[in-house]
């Protein structure tokens, strides 16, 4: 059943609607667990669109296997998605910096407060992101040290390639995930793919994982596929590669490949002079799990992240 969770009147003959699709078992007992799938907080991240579609398709084809409630929000930021805008149009604000919101606050905070109110009560929330238009990410779960005890069991079953546990000091307190975790709703953040694109194989991989988690929770009784055992990494094991020149980045090493310290990852070129401005090398031995997709770089632009010491 499609519900309008938020409805706001825009100036001229239009409503801002944030909708969810709630799927319930054929027969309700009143004791069902609830999982909420959220995506589209950033209007340029589209990988979650295919995931939402595919979850709904699989459930609809096998309704007899559903024993819990599944809430799907494909577009937390509908104006952003429909206008290829990362933030909330008209406010130039990152929606994922406005949680938990406030009903007395300005419009973005009012919206996020309503969304939080709707999700509270879920037994698990999966918040799907797709990096941004600049970087490609291998499917991964990100969490903070303080939430890892609660979230790791879900993260290990959701079929991602690795789990990145952040130091508590770097946690952004105004995100959906942090707010929901503080309110008692276990919420895991999945990052995968790249902005403005859909990577079908990542979509299938995550959907298989979500059904696996739903089966563990007693929400799904259908067959599920075996899932990957993810590499778990702490902050200290991740090497960052930033551009040390401005220019055009052309990668050489592919994502999810093993590189040694000093190994050539790519070049920053100067098409006006025909020179290489900077030869980009790996800071450590490990596996490339983030790689720049958008070629224009400035001094400091993130080029890659390397999972130190790990060979896949």
């Amino acid at each position, binding site marked *: 059943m499609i519900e309008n969770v938020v409805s*706001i*009147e*825009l*100036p*001229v*003959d239009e409503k*801002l609607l944030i909708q969810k699709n709630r799927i319930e078992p054929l027969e309700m007992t009143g004791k069902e667990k609830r999982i909420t799938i959220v995506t589209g907080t950033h209007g340029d991240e589209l990988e979650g669109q295919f995931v939402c579609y595919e979850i709904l398709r699989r459930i609809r084809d096998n309704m007899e296997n559903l024993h819990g409630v599944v809430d799907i929000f494909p577009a937390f930021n509908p104006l952003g998605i429909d206008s290829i805008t*990362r*933030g909330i149009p*008209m*406010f*130039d*604000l990152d929606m994922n*910096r406005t949680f938990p919101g406030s009903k*007395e*606050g*300005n*419009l973005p905070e*009012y919206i996020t407060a309503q969304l939080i109110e709707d999700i509270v009560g879920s037994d698990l929330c999966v918040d799907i992101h797709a990096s*941004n238009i*600049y970087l490609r990410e291998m499917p991964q779960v990100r969490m903070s040290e303080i939430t890892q005890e609660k979230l790791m069991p879900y993260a290990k079953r959701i079929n991602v390639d690795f789990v990145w546990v952040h130091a508590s000091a770097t946690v*952004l*307190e*105004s995100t959906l995930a942090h707010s929901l975790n503080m309110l008692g709703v276990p919420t895991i953040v999945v990052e995968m793919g790249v902005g403005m694109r859909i990577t079908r194989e990542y979509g299938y991989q995550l959907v298989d994982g979500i059904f696996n988690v739903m089966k563990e929770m007693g929400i799904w009784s259908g067959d599920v596929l075996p899932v990957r055992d993810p590499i778990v990494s702490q902050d200290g094991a991740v090497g*960052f590669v*930033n551009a040390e*020149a*401005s*220019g*055009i980045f052309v990668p050489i090493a592919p994502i999810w490949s093993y590189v040694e310290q000093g190994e050539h990852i790519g070049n920053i070129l*100067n098409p*006006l002079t025909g020179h290489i401005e900077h030869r980009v090398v790996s800071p450590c031995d490990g596996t490339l799990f983030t790689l720049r997709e958008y070629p*224009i*770089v*400035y*001094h*400091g*632009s*993130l080029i890659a992240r390397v999972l130190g010491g790990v060979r896949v």
Partner: protein
Amino acid sequence: MRKEVFYSLKAPYRDELRIMGYHFGQGEKAACIVGSTRGNEVQQLYVCSQLIKALKELEAHGNIAANKEILVIPSVNHYSMNIGKRFWAVDNTDINRMFPGYNRGETTQRIAAGVFEKAQGYSYGIQFTSFYMPGDFVPHVRMMETGYQNASLANLFGMPYVVIRKPKPIDTTTLNYNWQIWETSAFSVYTKETDLIDGDSARQAVSAVLRFLTRMGIIRYNCHSGYIASVIAEEELTTVHANAGGIYHRLKMPGQETHRGEVIAEILDPYEGIVRSQVISPTDGVIFFSHKKPLVMEHDIVCRIIRRLHE
């Protein structure tokens, strides 16, 4: 006056980004003043330019105090200003959400680190900045409640209002907040405009800064004593929301007095022109902030009122 390019950044095809510092006087680091950090802060750039003009004249007449140095950084993000963007044009990040910066991090973290390295260590830090909500404020001085703030110092600007804001997580990466954490007394000065130049409030801001610098013994400048400010906690302002979307027609301006039950704005049907909703003042007081754009969405904040205050 001594000019220097203290930070520069090469681009693939654009001219270099050069961040300029203007030094007045010599000696202990007395005051640092930062203008526009966002591409639409044209008024903030203008105010700084007028301040540099005034300080240049004061210095020429020997009116900078001995052993005091003032640094003015008029613009940080003119790369965005020159192409009509508010935030860093490549990745839409806000440099004023990147402090104290990180010189091995991403581009805007490196720019913030470059600016902060130059701007820190001064006794007083003053930033001309803007708010994320589109609208007009009464000119005021704003401070973050970090535990290091000093409202009585803010009073020395002689502006009509001093606002104390409880920082939210998002505020902890602003220049103002980090100045305070690094033991600089920090103030943000808000004038009426951002994208447009308002001469009157710009002059008021320049006078307020010169008045403050005089009172702190950094310059010698004779000016009007200004106001004894009303100090307001931001959370005590009464917020008024729009209860419909449409064409916005405001009837009360910032600084004007209003009364409980008074109509302070109307929202018109965008097709038929009839009044769809009236925005009613819930309290007696003075309008502190008012929505300015011609269109409004339902639940937008259209007004903030200082309760039970009279003109």
